């Protein structure tokens, strides 16, 4: 595996937009000129059941098509998953976990039994409610991920997301502004 390749695993619950987040993330990263992959894990599709989706991003063409078992980043959309799903599986000592939560990174690190330096937190649900008007944490978590990865251009991501959302929600401009604001806020507020 190329050293430059970044692998991401999203954890959410059916209906929370984990798949959409991975697809949107891939599209925006492509807009910054990198190779991408986004794929969901397909199991029984039930609202509220734990689901996963995945991303690979790289400067070089991505030919690997196996599952992701040692992600560099795990993004957790629903804090309750920490209790029920092994979200740190394969994370190792250098992996980072980004959690949508109101708790501090040291509190989450304690729960996950990993080093606090590996944990990043942001209250994406609150940001979503305040910007989009609904608890849809997937778009703000995109902003948090971009910040934690560090090598992606947030302005490029915002511009591309604006183009995508404008095409999709032509008749609902407030949805576009809310989503963009949520990405920006989570980018600013995510902390270790």
């Amino acid at each position, binding site marked *: 595996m190329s050293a430059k390749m970044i692998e991401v695993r999203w954890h959410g619950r059916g209906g929370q937009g984990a798949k959409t987040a991975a697809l949107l993330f*891939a599209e925006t990263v492509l807009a910054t*000129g990198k190779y991408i992959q986004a794929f969901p894990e397909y199991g029984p599709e039930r609202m509220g059941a734990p689901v996963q989706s995945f991303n690979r991003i790289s400067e070089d063409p991505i030919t690997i098509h196996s599952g992701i078992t040692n992600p560099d980043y795990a993004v957790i959309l629903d804090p309750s998953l920490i209790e029920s799903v092994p979200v740190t599986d394969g994370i190792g000592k250098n992996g980072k976990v980004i959690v949508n939560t109101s708790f501090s990174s040291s509190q989450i690190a304690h729960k996950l039994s990993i080093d606090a330096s590996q944990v990043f937190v942001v209250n994406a649900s609150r940001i979503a409610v305040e910007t989009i008007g609904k608890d849809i944490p997937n778009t703000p978590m995109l902003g948090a991920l971009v910040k934690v990865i560090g090598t992606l251009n947030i302005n490029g991501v915002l511009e591309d997301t604006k183009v995508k959302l404008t095409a999709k929600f032509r008749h609902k401009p407030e949805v576009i502004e809310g989503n963009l604001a949520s990405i920006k806020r989570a980018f600013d507020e995510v902390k270790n």
Partner: protein
Amino acid sequence: MIKTVYSKGKLVAKTGNEVMAEAMRQIEPDVVAAYPITPATEIVQIFSQFVADGIVKSEYVAVESEHSAMSATIGASAAGARAMTGTSSQGLSLMWEMLYIASGLRLPIVMAEVNRAISAPINIHGDQSDTMGARDAGWIQIYSENSQEAYDNMIQATRIAEKAKLPTLVTTDGFIISHCMEVVETYPDADVKAFIGKYEPERYLLDIKRPYTLGSIDLQDYYFEHRYQLAQAMRDAKDIVLDVAENFEKTFGRKYGLYEKYMLDDAEIAIVVIGSTAGTAKVVVNELREKGVKAGLLKIRVYRPFPVEEIAKDLMHVKAVAVMDRADSYSGAFAPVYSDIVASLYASGVTSPKVVNYVYGLGGREISTGHITSIYETLCKITSGAEKPSNKVEYINVRIK
């Protein structure tokens, strides 16, 4: 920074299903008849939306089963239309009877097929049992490693089918490619349309000035000759595939052949594989090459017609070969690709490579770089004499008591 290969190409992020539907939109066949099935559903769902929105002039026939889908496609093609369909797994199985009629009548139908396991037990995930089961149905079979190849193969398939007068199916691995978003370079509509050209069938049923009979009874007097012609058409299709690939490269810049050689020319050990796993195996080949191991890969793109002499020539120098099949034959003998490879080598007088067979990934079972590395390690042991080559099918990542 990613660049396009074709000067007028456009980079998009799309899933395998989305690009197959996109190719169909650009090809804009006269008729599409289909019945949706996981994981191919999106292909015809997206295409039917194009029809509903008036984006394409194609006629979409919503049928009640895959048997009818193939029947309607055959009817449209026989009438003189450029006709396409899409399906997967149980859907392809239900088309069975009509698959042979499409090829027997020499109708250039193109099918977008997403590889999925066959029931029972029921499973929606990717393996190649469905199209491998149809390997003797007289259809040209083109497999895709990724979404880019799926898109390019669909465009080429249209020309191949019409030139060879043989139905042609293009596949992707279910979910692994069909539902994986990747970077794909698409070409402008006008350029794709110019490449495939206008369909002008030599004979067709709605040609009222030159009426003819199609599908009549054919007994001891002529049946055999017609079946021979079908077999010969398949053999002749190899040159057509290569000719279309050459034109495709001249136009759009991407090179295709009957199969792809990856680090094969000086390889001492090699894997033969079809589909998305070839991409994963390339990562392993790169790692082994860095360690000085002369590993290579042969990825079959065109499985029907099977490139007998060509593959024999390109594997001749390899000491040990592992043929990886994502389908089993349940025959008591070997899996499909292995049987074809060994027959090709033997018939071509190539008897020096040790050739072993691995069945993997049934029902979407994970195949990782670790699994593939272990196969190359076994090949190393075979070449050094530390291990005897297995004379039966070996299974990867399965629990056997």
